[in-house]
């Protein structure tokens, strides 16, 4: 009886149902178009990368027939403008890039990760807001301004503090690069730490961890994928940076024996010389070859990062 009473409104409702709305042909077509567009957006990233690689390669490749690659990589004489015997050895440039990048990372990684840990684990809300804004500001400074600071400020400071004759050297550029890559590391690193679930923190604390043990043994391992990504983005920034290192390294082709020696980097070489070369000349093509080299280097770094992250995940 009770059931019958309860069923009645339902039956009434179902007979009075409003007609099901139908989608017009135009709507279906629109759907298709949007789908294709989104597909294109996704694929465009790939197209751009391949296109860039293709054009750089097209400009640089013809020189490969004339050039002795062994000499190109392993000699350090860079005399592209010599009238009789131009020599293109980028050994010193590779080492220059490498030394500046490595030193920059040695400075930036502890600072960047440390700052990320401080932001996500230790500091209060107000402090955090202020710090984040400041750090973002640090990221917004144009690289030519950094170079200017290197030339005018750091140059003198390094000369005085370390009592060396030239302040435009590996150290100078590395400090600038470190300052430039720290903001990326901090913001990505902090995101990674923030993504560690709070339940881990609670579990660790309930097990009697001190704050330090919690961070060192639990949070850093848990966030290591994100932190690795943060560091590698920093490396990418440092390898690719041009203007600041052009101004701060001293720009002299040289294999450094200490951090107070001037060097020249691959990127700075391209920037400084490409405008002076005749299009299609050997020098011009060699500069593009350096471009391919840089491209390959960053590609390898990314690939390594990918493998590292995958390896960690698998375990």
């Amino acid at each position: 009886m009770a059931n019958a009473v309860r069923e009645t409104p339902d039956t009434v409702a179902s007979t009075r149902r409003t007609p099901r709305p139908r989608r017009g042909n135009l709507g279906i077509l629109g759907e298709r178009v949007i789908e294709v567009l989104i597909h294109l957006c996704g694929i465009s990233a790939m197209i751009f990368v391949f296109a860039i690689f293709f054009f750089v390669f097209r400009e640089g490749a013809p020189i490969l027939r004339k050039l002795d690659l062994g000499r190109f990589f392993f000699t350090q004489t860079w005399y592209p403008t010599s009238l009789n015997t131009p020599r293109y050895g980028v050994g010193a440039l590779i080492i220059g890039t490498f030394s500046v990048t490595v030193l920059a990372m040695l400075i930036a990684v502890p600072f960047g990760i440390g700052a990320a840990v401080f932001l996500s684990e230790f500091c209060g809300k107000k402090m955090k807001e202020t710090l984040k804004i400041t750090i973002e500001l640090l990221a917004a400074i144009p690289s030519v301004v950094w170079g200017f600071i290197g030339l005018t400020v750091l140059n003198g400071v390094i000369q005085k503090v370390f009592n060396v004759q030239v302040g435009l050297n590996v150290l100078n550029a590395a400090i600038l690069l470190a300052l430039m890559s720290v903001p990326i590391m901090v913001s990505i690193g902090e995101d990674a730490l923030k993504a560690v679930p709070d339940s881990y923190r609670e579990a660790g604390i309930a097990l009697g961890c001190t704050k330090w043990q919690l961070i060192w043994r639990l949070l850093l391992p848990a966030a290591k994928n994100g932190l690795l990504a943060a560091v590698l983005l920093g490396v990418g920034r440092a390898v690719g940076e041009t203007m600041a290192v052009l101004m701060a390294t001293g720009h002299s082709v040289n294999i450094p024996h200490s951090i107070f020696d001037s060097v020249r980097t691959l990127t700075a070489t391209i920037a400084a010389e490409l405008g002076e070369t005749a299009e299609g000349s050997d020098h011009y093509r060699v500069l593009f070859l350096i471009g391919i080299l840089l491209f390959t280097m960053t590609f390898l770094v990314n690939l390594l990062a990918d493998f590292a992250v995958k390896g960690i995940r698998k375990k």
Partner: protein
Amino acid sequence: MTILPPEPVRPPSSESASPKILIEDLRLSYGPKEVIHGISFYIEPNEILGIIGPAQSGKTSLLRCINRTIDFTASAKVSGIIKVDGMDVRQMRNVYELRRKIGMVAPLPVGLPLSIYENVAFAPRTSGMRKKSDLDGLVEKCLRQAALWDEVKDRLDSLGTKLSGGQQQRLTIARALSHQPEILCLDEFSIAIDPVTTMRIEEVLRELKQDMTIILVTNLVQQARRLAARTLFLWNGEIIELDTTEVMFSDKAKDKRTNDYVNGIFG
């Protein structure tokens, strides 16, 4: 029908022979909202105390007050006395020592992103146990106690988070046991575990009672009935009733709400 006289129950007071945990007039508020309204009770050594009560009655908050993880909730304000082994928890300097004394098992398993072995070895390592053989022995003992050893002994190196929900929960129990606590707090440990495993763990708890004091917060009133010597009915931050489990689950419970709750009439 003869009416049996109610069994005399010791009043909850500090005079009873050295309780393991003594709580007096504990009040807890989050911001302006008070969630525990001045409760007092004690727990004897090697006792299993069941805590039952509907959601939002302050059960988990109570546990967090005892091991002082409540400190990490900025808005929480605690007053009253919580004594563990006669020492006031809230005055303690070495809070890490306190937390090592108390094993805590959360409702949803938190497998740390480490291997199974490292999950269990984590707490002993942080407190300074370094020798591989000691750690190996301890890990095996804890995993056995948590009824997990047989299932994982061949893959101690794989990630703890890859285990099934029930296995992860037993892993957290093993981890809670790993620093050889004197008090074990289980916060609704069985909500992610199948009934068979639950029974196995309950079996384990009965054995563990020899070595430690157990606080069993549970939503399954029958679980309290099976395990606890005494049961505490907490509701809206107040103790409605605390008595021996037989009394709580009989029609002799003093408060009608107790009777209703354990019989599933409300809550």
